[in-house]
């Protein structure tokens, strides 16, 4: 280019001009971009709303033979701006393990997050998506099961002799360890 023939200070000025053009232009464009990026990243600081213990069912509603039954978990829920006082936030399987003892599982398959069904004839839980199978006590039924861990057991408390309170949680799917989603 003919720039080569220009005196040196003119070349330097040319560089300064180019640099400031790029920097100033980038600065102008950076401001809206950054504002957008911040809003885009907002979900990272949102925590899942823990509901604590929730009254799910009464002891009488569970069969004596230890077969599980499915119950909805009703609790308050916040969806971004909407506050809902009492809505289903998930479901659990409850089964009696003693006169005053209950075992609770989150119905979500730890493999990929589908809802598992209980097959009465096979006395086991079966996932309709990738055919993971779980025994009555929630453990993996056969070694070919795609699920990395057994069904997620939840903390249960019996209050006032008959109320079943469950500490409802969801856990990360696809992981051998049981990590709560926060």
């Amino acid at each position, binding site marked *: 280019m003919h720039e080569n023939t220009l005196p040196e200070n003119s070349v330097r000025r040319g560089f300064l*001009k*180019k640099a400031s*053009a790029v920097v100033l*232009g980038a600065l102008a464009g950076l401001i*809206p971009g950054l504002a957008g*990026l*911040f809003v885009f990243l*907002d979900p990272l600081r949102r925590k899942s709303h823990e509901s604590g213990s929730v009254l799910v069912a009464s002891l009488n509603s569970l069969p004596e033979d230890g077969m599980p039954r499915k119950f909805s978990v009703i609790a308050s829920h916040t969806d971004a*701006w909407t506050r809902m006082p009492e809505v289903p936030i998930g479901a659990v399987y409850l089964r009696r393990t003693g006169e005053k003892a209950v075992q609770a599982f989150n119905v979500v398959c730890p493999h990929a997050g589908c809802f598992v069904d209980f097959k009465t004839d096979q006395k086991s839980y079966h996932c309709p998506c990738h055919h993971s199978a779980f025994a009555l006590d929630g453990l993996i039924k056969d070694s070919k099961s795609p699920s990395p861990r057994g069904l997620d057991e939840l903390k249960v408390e019996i209050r006032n002799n008959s109320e079943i309170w469950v500490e409802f949680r969801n856990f990360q799917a696809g992981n051998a360890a049981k990590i709560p989603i926060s």
Partner: protein
Amino acid sequence: MRVFLDWLDQRTGYRGIVRSSLYENIPGGARWRYVWGSTLTFTLSVQFITGLFLWMSYSPSSQTAWESVFYIQYQMWGGWLLRGIHHYTASLMTVLLVLHLMQVVIDGAYKAPREINFWFGLGLLQLVLGLSLTGYLLPWDQKGFWATRVATNIAAIVPVVGPAIQKLVVGGADYGHHTLTRFFALHAGALPAAVIALLVWHIILFRRHGITAKVPKRKPDGYFWPDQVLMDSVACLAVMATVLFLILRPWIFGAGGDLGAELGAPADPSETYSAARPEWYFLFLFEFLKYFPGGTEIWGAIVIPSLIMGIIFLMPLLGRWRLGHRFNVGLLFSLLAGVGLLTYLATAQDKRDPAYQAAVAEAEQNAHRVKALAQSPSGIPISGAVTLLRNDPLTQGPKLFAKNCASCHRYDGHDGTGGQPKDEQVASDLHGFASRPWLSGLLDPQRISSKHYFGGTKFKDGKMVKFVNKDVAKYSAEQKEQLKKVIAALSFDAQLRSQHELELRQPEIIKEGKRLLVSEEMRCTECHRFHKDGDDPTGPDLTGYGSREWLIEFISNSAHERFYGERNDRMPAFGTKQMLDRPAISLLADWLRGDWYESKEKAELAKSPKPL
């Protein structure tokens, strides 16, 4: 690297593209007057970027649009900044469009062979105005909602097809979900796509014909890069700085208030909104319409603006003659002067109009209130934020009072909303009803016969007034102390929030007051009942006096035997006669009792009022 770039160049020819776009010849060198087109391209990109990010958090339906914008503005990281940039850049774009148009017309850049590019530019202008119009509705607040109703009603006056056009734009006969989805599809889909298409052609044609150099040329010819790019960069940065200034204005001047774009109260078709105005750059059209009497609006709204656009469209053809060019420049300046004048008239008139000012104040109050409610622990219900205001005693109470009660009663001397009713006061002032100060006034011989209490009613000659004037007037200092306790006990039954803390500290006084209230020496229970069945009371039952339940029942039917019975004065049975429904009466009762949600800081502030 070199090898890779060569490889790339052979396949894409990128070097040629970069060279031709950077080393475009500028006759007479770079000049500031050429920056407008670049700033417009820049602002459009800003709108695309910010719009895309806003889109990720926006939810177009009549129960979620306002709510999602509220969430962006007040709950999300930097949401106020993002929305502020989008809003104020839109405003600045209108200004830049006008500057660009002026530069093009004054410099004669529309003349042959650039006519078609001029028309593309006019198309872009229309599209950008369309973007403004559709974007104004999307927050679904009162301002956007009512302004859009006006705009779409104008569409309906087009002969024959008008109503159909309106229905298509609105997405039905009523404004709702489909109005939002349609406006949003236009705003974020159809119009931007059209803008991009036209802009690409606009720039291609601009490159084809080159810049229209301003003569005389001051300098030798130059290149676009870096001289003109530097000027463009500085101009774009100045635009962004202006946008930031507009967003941060309240903070810079320490005026307080929210940063960024305004968000009014949620759209409510059942609430009148007299503060409806279009965005400032459409104010001239709004003002223009005022000069067209009923039946001729079509001239002001459609015919004349279209004719003017038509003339502008013909500018390149008129500009072929010397006189034509002068006419074009003259026309442009007269149009701008006209727009300026109409905008001035619109704002000046609003400034002088107390009704409009009151409407704006009310709109601001409602906006402020609904945001406080939305941030309260109970939050926004599924039915949307609009119900927050509808069910808010602080918002609805004053209006209900002004409409139903203020023809006889007063509230702190006014009609509840701060106005003065035209009817004379003939019944008590209910501000602080059932509170200790209110009851002290009622039992004060100096005041019971005043208009503030029974002065305007038929009870001014009744037993209560006689009792206060004869007995209470002669009370000894000790009896006066006892009366204070009785008042405290009676007022305790109202369970007023304003007295709650005081009452917690004075259980003994209240207990003693209760004993005195039913004692023979105070004589209250000669006519009234108080937590006990008496025989044939003649005055209102004092059990639960001023409580929510008591007040609701009283407003429903004050002539019920529990209250005044057949001695009732003119007070209508609002509930029994179905003049007001139960929720309305409850709102009224809650408001009179001062029972509404207050944010924590505000409650703290009220507890420890600062000395004046």
